[in-house]
């Protein structure tokens, strides 16, 4: 397997390294798994069989979520170790949203949820693209769980922050969560999850700093679709 595998002769490898390397390894395996599913989707027996396509699509969606979660765990672990370096570069915000939509689209073939990109033209900003993607994909997965039919992604400038938004037409967040500022540890934000997704989002948002300002996230129910609104503010 890959170079990242811990070798037997390295007697003094610490647990931390083994832990990180294993997650890394699992991500590699998951990639092969993911490709195998995509391959299966393209085979004739699957293409011509709606039931098979739907099943494969569900498996793919599940794998993508596992991959996403692993990425979060690994990133949080590195942040906790003080070894995570934010990779800030200049990105087209629209581009990031479009990528998420295209990717999600390929995962939700069997669902009747429309996911679209709202206003975002000509907004560029400095951020860690992979981490921001991770945050937004997490919010989208959450919305997929609760939305009735629509999810809208958008980006805008607000008070010198680049504001990404994921909103849906669900019932919205329960009031006790909003009263808590969305910081309840028991929060079911990951569609059957444990709140890790939100914790990840807050942590990574706060790593984005610029000229004394710090990134953050907000939950609300004041969107144009009267559902839940997840906002990410980056300085």
């Amino acid at each position: 397997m890959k170079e990242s595998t811990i070798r037997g002769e390295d007697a003094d490898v610490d647990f931390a390294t083994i832990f990180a390397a294993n997650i890394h390894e699992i991500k590699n395996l998951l990639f092969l798994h993911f490709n195998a599913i995509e391959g299966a989707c393209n085979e004739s027996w699957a293409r011509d069989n709606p039931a098979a396509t739907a099943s494969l699509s569900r498996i793919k969606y599940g794998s993508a979520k596992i991959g996403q979660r692993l990425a979060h765990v690994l990133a949080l672990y590195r942040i906790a170790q003080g070894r995570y370096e934010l990779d800030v570069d200049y990105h087209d915000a629209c581009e990031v949203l479009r990528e998420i939509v295209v990717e999600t689209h390929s995962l939700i073939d069997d669902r009747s949820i429309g996911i679209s990109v709202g206003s975002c033209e000509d907004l560029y900003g400095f951020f860690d693209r992979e981490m921001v993607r991770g945050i937004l994909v997490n919010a989208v997965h959450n919305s997929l769980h609760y939305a009735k039919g629509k999810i809208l992604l958008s980006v805008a400038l607000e008070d010198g922050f680049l504001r990404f938004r994921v909103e849906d037409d669900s019932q919205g967040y329960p009031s006790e969560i909003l009263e808590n500022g969305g910081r309840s540890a028991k929060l079911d934000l990951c569609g059957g999850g444990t709140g890790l997704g939100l914790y990840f989002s807050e942590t990574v948002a706060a790593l984005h700093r610029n000229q004394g300002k710090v990134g953050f996230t907000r939950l609300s129910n004041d969107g144009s679709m009267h559902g839940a609104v997840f906002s990410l503010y980056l300085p």
Partner: protein
Amino acid sequence: MAVFSGQKNTPVDFKDKTFLVIDDIIGVRSSMRITISTLGGVKIDMAANAADAINKIEHRTYDIILCDYFLGEGKDGQQLLEELKRRRMIKSATIFMMVTAERSYEKVVSAVELAPDDYLIKPFSGEVLRLRLERLVNKKTFLAPIFDLMEGQEFRKSVQVCDQRLQAPGPYLLDLLRLKGELLLLVSDFASACEVYKHILTLREIPWARMGLAKAQYFQENFEAAAEGFQQIVAEHPNYMSAYDWLAKTHSALGDEAAAQRVLMEVVAKSPRMLQRQKDLGETAYHNEDLETAQEAFESVLEFGKFSSFAEPEDYANLSRVFLDKGEYTQALSVMGNARKAFENSDEVMLHAAVMDSMIHDKAGDKAAAEQAFSEAQKLFETVAEKPESIALDMVRACYQHGDKAMGEKIAQNLVKNNHDNAAVLKRTEQMFQRMGLHDQGKELIHASSREVIALNNRAVKLAQAGDLKGSVELLMQAAEQLGNNNVVVLNAAHAILTYLGQTGWDEELALAVRGYLDSVKQRDPEHKKYLMLSTVYKDLSAKFGVNK
């Protein structure tokens, strides 16, 4: 069903694009092939490791290279990319995308010019790969006019086009600013480069922009400011390897060799396999008379360089010299013996080994062997054409040791005259005299020889200022004749001739001399700033007079 706003990227036809997929796992390679073919790509080659990839790239031009970071045994993806760029095996227009399972895991921030065009994090779907590639193709198309000018070494014009494009930069603002900064450094317009990088830094604290600013300050000889900049990068981004190299260089320029050594030791501990860095450490430690560290570093150079084309006879001599100074003569001799084997008795290695042997035998008390080696060295020194500075330096020391002061002085004078603006060579020369207990004599020799070159230059400049361009040209051409290895002298001659031609019209004979001068510098230092500038002048001039090359 999903709906999304209109595709902003111009769609790309991947049918005509050549792909190279580099991954050590066969399953990944074949699944990548399937993914690329779903995008419409048909011209797809595969490589299993870095060596395989280099071989393929030597024989075919690729538009898009998808490379996994981990490539099993041998070089990793980043090292492969660095080699491809250093050897200019891929063009600026080529798309090089690094595929990795985790962005931070492999992240070794390297010099920006050695970074891939993008990172793709596994797992990814075919559609995301399409979007990323389309975006990169669009970007490369937008920047293509600049790349073309750069390819033709028309750097000034490249800067102008950057400025034009910066009127409406869109998503490429930072790419344009980055290119502009690099180009300004290349044409030695350090003040403007500082401005560009400072502008970027007002937008955001980005390590490569901080790096660019510090480099520009270094070249402006504002070493304090440069050191501060490099220090800041190293503190905030401990993996930014090249910042350590520059910080060490800046400490050296400030005369603080001990600090330079500390920085180099720190970075060598992080990445021991970088040969040049180990070499720098060895030389700095040798300068600081820390022979243990010098020995360790030079041994690492030989160990890691065994199978690399970078190893030189000089690397062996460096280690042998340390053993000589430590009084470990058997070791010192055996290192040069290995050098002879490694370089199959080439002229250069035979010369350097004879020089070293003559000194080692002499110190070890074997006068007969010492004399024999020294006369061999004297003979070879006259006949071997290509001699690195280290051979000349060792030869000077050997001459003094064997009482041939006249020859030693002559070689030293020549060395200084050919390198009068090369601070590192002058410093090493001075230190060698100091080690021989001849510090004052050495300083005097260096001073006098440098002065000779400077005085000659000044005379030429005065002639030119007084309106005697022709006299200035003649004087500098004479100087270039004698000091053919001195880039400054040779380029000044080329510069004077070009000015003369600009005023009096084309003269093929003089133009031929200019081409010879430029080529000789190009061979020694293809990135020499004044060389690049004068090449552009030459091109413009020959175009102006309608002369074909």
